[in-house]
């Protein structure tokens, strides 16, 4: 219903207020302004929450820790859980080094256009799997075996450097010329990504449901 609508009784041939374009013009302007201000205010709050260290997004140095994803009964949804020390490749990094990984990792993700096959938090393309919780995917055990890697992160790095050699399915990922440094940064990025509180998406990750 229009904002500030006041029905006027029609007398003879006099126009009712809601027929006058100027009424709706005023409505258009006021609606837009109010909504834009609301959006602005919510943006300020949201940006604070999604800055690393904010309420929903851990600092980049979280890659030094174990990351889990566990159902929280109180909240009624899954929540990322930051645990004990578990540095990537056994080497803890400083906040600055972690940030450097993120910068490099994001450059790799953009330069190879990963988002045009995969999704990140469900955004992107749907030809390849969602990468939000890729760090937590049980399938890496298989890749550890076929790449001969001792750790999950090593398996991920080897996969990224030569994905066409380690295909496990009919749909294959092409070789994108990813160097070892780039692969390491990308793996760090994916680990950090999995620690973001996404309000429970994807739902019950890793826990297949039996009832339909």
């Amino acid at each position, binding site marked *: 219903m229009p904002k500030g609508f006041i029905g006027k009784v029609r007398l003879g041939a006099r126009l009712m207020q809601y027929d006058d374009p100027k009424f709706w013009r005023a*409505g258009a302007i006021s609606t837009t302004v109010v*909504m834009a201000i*609301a959006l602005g205010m*919510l943006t300020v709050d949201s940006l604070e929450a999604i800055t690393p260290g904010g309420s929903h997004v851990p600092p980049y140095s979280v890659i030094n820790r174990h990351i889990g994803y566990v159902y929280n009964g109180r909240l009624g949804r899954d929540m990322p859980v930051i645990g004990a020390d578990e540095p990537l490749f056994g080497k803890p990094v400083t906040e600055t080094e972690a940030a450097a990984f993120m910068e490099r990792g994001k450059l790799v*993700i953009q330069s190879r*256009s990963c988002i045009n096959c995969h999704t990140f938090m469900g955004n992107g393309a749907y030809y390849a799997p969602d990468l939000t919780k890729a760090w937590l995917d049980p399938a890496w055990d298989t890749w550890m075996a076929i790449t001969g890697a001792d750790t999950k992160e090593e398996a991920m790095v080897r996969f990224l450097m030569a994905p066409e050699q380690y295909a496990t399915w009919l749909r294959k990922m092409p070789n994108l010329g990813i160097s070892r440094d780039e692969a390491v940064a990308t793996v760090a990025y994916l680990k950090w990504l999995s620690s973001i509180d996404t309000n429970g998406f994807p739902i019950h*990750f890793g826990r297949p449901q039996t009832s339909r």
Partner: protein
Amino acid sequence: MSRSKNLAVKYLVAAILFFGVMTLSGLMSAAYYIQPDFLFGLIPFSIAKMLHIDTMIIWLLMGFMGAVYWFLPDEFEIEPAGIWAAEILFWVFVSAVLVVAATFVLVQWGAGTETTLWLVQQGRKYVEAPRWAAIGVALVMLVFAWNVVGTALRARRFTGIMAVMSVNMVPLVLLYLIAFPKIDNMAVDLYWWWWLVHLWVEATWEILIGCIMALAVMKLLGTSRKIVEGWLYVEVSMVLGTGILGLGHHYFWIGTPDYWLGIGGFFSALEPLPLLGMVVHAVYDAGVHRMKTTNRPAFYWTLAEAFGNFLGGGVFGFMITLPQLNLFAHGTQWTVSHGHFAFWGAYACGVLSVCYIALQEQRRLAVVNGRGWVWAFVLLNGGLIGMVGSLLVAGMAQTFFERAIGGSTLEAFIAGQENPWFVLGMYSRMFFGLIFTAGYLTLAWNLLALGHREAAAVAQPAPAE
């Protein structure tokens, strides 16, 4: 014919050609789902898909620009300001798009450096074009804004429609700046990216197509300016009233606070309301003016616009917009089905309507009719609806098996993709995609050929249809 109208025709022709590229790359993308080795090693899925979605944005944008350049001299009765710059930039724009497309296909990717972002691609959906090209696009849009606002200033009058269009230009152009930065934090990247995408296609583009349709309806049906302007303001109120905070339906799962579930879900659920109003308006116009249109294809594409927008955006959107459901359906082929239907209905149909309006005047046709446009209309809309229905089936299967049951892992993803209903959906989509392609070819031929025989018969009364 005025320079602006000549430029308009160039833009509309370019739009239709890029529509063809979009269709071809769409077929390629669809082929991958059926035959995973299709062009693997030559042109990976990501490249085909990138071409597909980017040319969609480009052809629609060029269609809008063509429409505006067409109507500008009629609105202001003078040659638009800065038209010389727009004429040059048309060729710059088209060349840039071709170079970028060639880069996508031939170079495809680069090392993880800023140089790649400047020269090869930026890897953010819809705005993958390298920064050098993005600068070009921004320049084209700035000149476009100048052509509109400058002409109004030169003519010393702002009609209601042009006032809305001019004011709308500001956020339209400014939002494009979001195509430039590289943001390390994916949550922040997506936060701003959604400002660009949503506030384009669910806000500023809606306003722009509203203005274009207002101009089209004045020409097509002879509706008075006061009526279309009043309606335009109603639309702006309701579309922006629901759409600005409806942006929140993209903020459910990207790491933002959970108040967005309530805010986004609520306003998004209201978004179909103005679309229903547009359906009523379309029925009214069809009923009242039906006998008085000399341009049947333009009129039918306008109706398709109102209904397509409502069905694709309203009905299909409402199925998946509540957060409790979106949690399962987010980022599946269900999204794809909604996206295809909404873009087609809300924008493509409107651009095609303007093509026929311009064509009528350019070729001086008393009446625009015939069988060609009907075939194109049926094949395109039928093909589109078939594709969208197929994607809906595939999307529901994916949601059910990968997300609701499977636990969203890689294994669950594969299980979903191999589910018989999903596979059926992919084959079916390809089938209807071919029908759509046949429709495109018919449309292109119709636009090319229409009127060349009839032009000779303009003086004679047209047969009753």
